[in-house]
């Protein structure tokens, strides 16, 4: 059962995360979290003929590994919530084409890991099903040609631009099981403060992250110090600075804060501009770094706030500003 207070759903029977896995690409293998991935595939083509198929291959690999770690088969999954950055969410659809499971495709841009995990937890936590899976991916090469320019085009990136992560993450949420547990989720409101620069998405998303975090604290009565760590999805250098400034103006400081986009790469050494981005970014950091630490009890309470910039190349060219969104998941080592 669950209780909704304000914007936040609090679970009475907290769903358990019984399996999780992430598979990363070459650039991720050169980053600080390389050792923590379940699997690294340096051939970012994954032996496929195009980048789009390669992204689905990353997803399939993450699904297999998460199911193995949970000790179950695909037949035990009641619902699969998945999303990616490709047009019409095709990486997920083509992955699930080969898996016989009830499927809901999601598009939350880079916030999709928190969105899919929120929905999977809500379905399990409210008793609709016993097991659900959240699956998310992004692929640098597939995203670049969708949102920017061809890979071999000789363009110079602005310092505020972020680097799309090549990775997939899968999480199995079950009604019964051990830590980590999902205690509560807050689905976000869209916030648009007029940012039109497609190369500064961190700035476009930061107000939405601040809004969701403030609403969660108001609903739960908790404070930042109640958490071992607060992670935002890929705000990068600019967005994470702006988030802290906005929250400071609202009288909230985050002493224990990191951004997934700043953790996954060594920003300066790997020449990734303002940090990592893409829905694979927060998915990879969640599955490789956050969940293992909560599972082992190193961290007891964590807020995972993945952020998304909900524009398309068409709206960008039409001069529209970028709507931002952020979804929050409270993950705990105790029920």
């Amino acid at each position, binding site marked *: 059962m669950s209780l909704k207070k304000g914007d936040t759903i609090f679970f009475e029977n907290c769903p358990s995360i019984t399996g999780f896995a992430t598979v990363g690409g070459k650039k991720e293998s050169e980053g600080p979290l390389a050792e923590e991935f379940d699997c690294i595939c340096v051939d970012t083509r994954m032996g496929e*003929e*195009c980048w789009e198929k390669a992204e689905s291959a990353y997803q399939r690999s993450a699904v297999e590994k998460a199911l193995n770690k949970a000790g179950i088969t695909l037949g035990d999954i009641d619902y699969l919530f998945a999303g990616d950055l490709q047009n019409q969410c095709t990486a997920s659809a083509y992955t699930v084409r080969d898996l016989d499971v009830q499927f809901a495709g999601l598009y939350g841009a880079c916030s999709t890991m928190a969105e899919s995990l929120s929905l999977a937890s809500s379905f399990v936590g409210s008793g609709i099903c016993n097991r659900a899976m959240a699956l998310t991916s992004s692929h640098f090469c597939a995203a670049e*040609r969708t949102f920017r*320019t*061809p*890979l*071999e*085009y*000789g*363009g*110079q*990136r*602005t*310092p*505020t631009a972020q680097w799309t992560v090549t990775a997939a993450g899968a999480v199995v949420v079950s009604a019964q099981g051990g830590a980590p547990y999902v205690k509560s989720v807050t689905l976000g409101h869209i*916030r648009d*403060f*007029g*940012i039109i620069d497609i190369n*500064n998405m961190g*700035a476009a998303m930061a*107000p939405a992250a*601040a*809004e969701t975090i*403030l609403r969660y604290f108001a609903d739960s009565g908790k404070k930042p110090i109640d958490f071992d760590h607060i992670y935002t999805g890929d705000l990068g*250098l*600019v967005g994470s*600075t*702006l988030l802290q*400034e*906005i929250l400071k*103006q*609202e009288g909230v400081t985050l002493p224990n804060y990191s951004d997934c986009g700043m953790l996954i790469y060594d920003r300066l050494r790997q*020449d990734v501009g*303002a940090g990592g981005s893409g829905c694979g970014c927060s998915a990879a950091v969640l599955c490789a770094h956050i969940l293992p630490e909560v599972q082992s009890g190193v961290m007891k309470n964590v807020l995972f706030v993945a952020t998304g910039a909900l524009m398309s190349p068409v709206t960008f060219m039409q001069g529209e500003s970028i709507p931002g969104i952020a979804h929050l998941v409270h993950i705990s080592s105790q029920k």
Partner: protein
Amino acid sequence: MKLTKEEYQQMTTEASPKSQVVRDCIWAFCVGGGICLLGEVLKYFYCKWGLTLTDAGTLTSATLIALSAICTMFGWYQKLATKAGAGTLVPITGFANAVVSPAIEFKTEGYITGVGAKMFVIAGPVIVYGMLASVAWGIIWYFWRILFA
């Protein structure tokens, strides 16, 4: 949140790192100048081999385009461009890169709807507005000569 859009724009400008203009200009000058120097060297040798100045100029452009296409194919041009910026964008090699890179990228969508249709996705506007500008200048030049020549 109490924040207004205007305040946030100001905060964003302050929080966003700026491009390193001096460093970028030095890179662009050296690489762009280097490409032009290569063109001059090629032209000198083509002239020395007995070609007329017009033929040597045409062959120089064709050689630079071919070199750019080969470098793009191996991914070298893009690597250089991340540092050189306008230095690799402005010379004719940049135009060749803008045509070859989508041709490679969209090969998976077929030779007609992929390579053929997408080849000019970046260079197309340059051709359209370049031709428009040349027509406009032609008209101005025509009347200029009638009135002032």
